[in-house]
């Protein structure tokens, strides 16, 4: 395998793995957060406004870790600097 194939192979496989593993943790965490929020909503319906607002902010904070992984895999797929460098090197020869 030449270096171009190797870079493409590793980038594509790692893009899938990054999003796959990167969403696993946030999914578990969001599930826990929503479950706890529902429990406290059932116990204290009066505090629903505060709980919902805190829940939304917390969910966005948790979800941003998954978004970081998604951004990394998008960079690997569509704006890969190593791929661009290898292409430039191949074109120069």
């Amino acid at each position, binding site marked *: 395998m030449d270096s171009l194939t190797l870079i493409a192979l590793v980038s594509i496989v790692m893009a899938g793995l990054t999003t796959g593993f990167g969403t696993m943790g946030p999914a578990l965490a969001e599930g826990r957060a929503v479950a706890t929020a529902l429990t406290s909503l059932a116990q204290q319906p009066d505090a629903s*406004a*505060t709980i919902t*607002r805190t829940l*939304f*902010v917390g969910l*966005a904070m948790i979800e*941003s870790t998954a*978004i*970081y992984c*998604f*951004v990394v895999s*998008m960079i690997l797929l*569509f*704006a890969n600097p190593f791929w661009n460098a290898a292409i430039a090197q191949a074109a120069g020869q």
Partner: protein
Amino acid sequence: MHLSPDEVIFWQLGLFKLNATIVYTWALMLVLVLGSRLITARLSRDHQRSSWQNLLEIIVSGIEQQIGEIGLAQPQRYLGFLGTLFLFVAAASLCTVIPGFEPPTGSLSTTVALAACVLVAVPMYGIRDQGLRGYLATYLEPTWIMLPFNLISEVSRTLALAVRLFGNMMSGAMIIGILLAITPFLFPIVMTLLGLLTGMVQAYIFSILAAVYIAAATRTRKPRPQSPA
């Protein structure tokens, strides 16, 4: 397929490029500014008022109430900054229903600029509220050992603010683009609806987080509890 509206170039003269981000940002700004100018030109104080005035009053008083609930003492002082952030991000995601429109917040340069505004505004409000010495002293809390970590958190939360908004808006556009190639008719509409929801939530999150950071910088210092002798 392009990653951000930066890559759509309408017009170019040498180094100067007019890309979709700039064009749509200015279009949004024009719509927001001219719209509010037109509405506020004919304000009425009695019970007969236009529906547009009602809309603006609902938005402004809603934002003010939300800022107050965060714990900022005088919401009017922060209404201009936080309200502008919310309205811009919300309008950008709301306008994605217009065909051909690309949200300028789907470009990393826009979101970094917005986050940089927050980075500058937080110390500004903090210094105005408790003075230069008082604000700088908050970096030394709880002990001076935490100084580097406080500085790092200042930078990292700005980065997180920018990348979160960019990732959410970009992923919405990208998923719709991919789905258009796979299942052309029904599914992209559903995803656009979901994108509208996430866009509004992200606008809310962005301004709420900015408000929380400002609240942390301007908190009225409680008197230190006397240590028992």
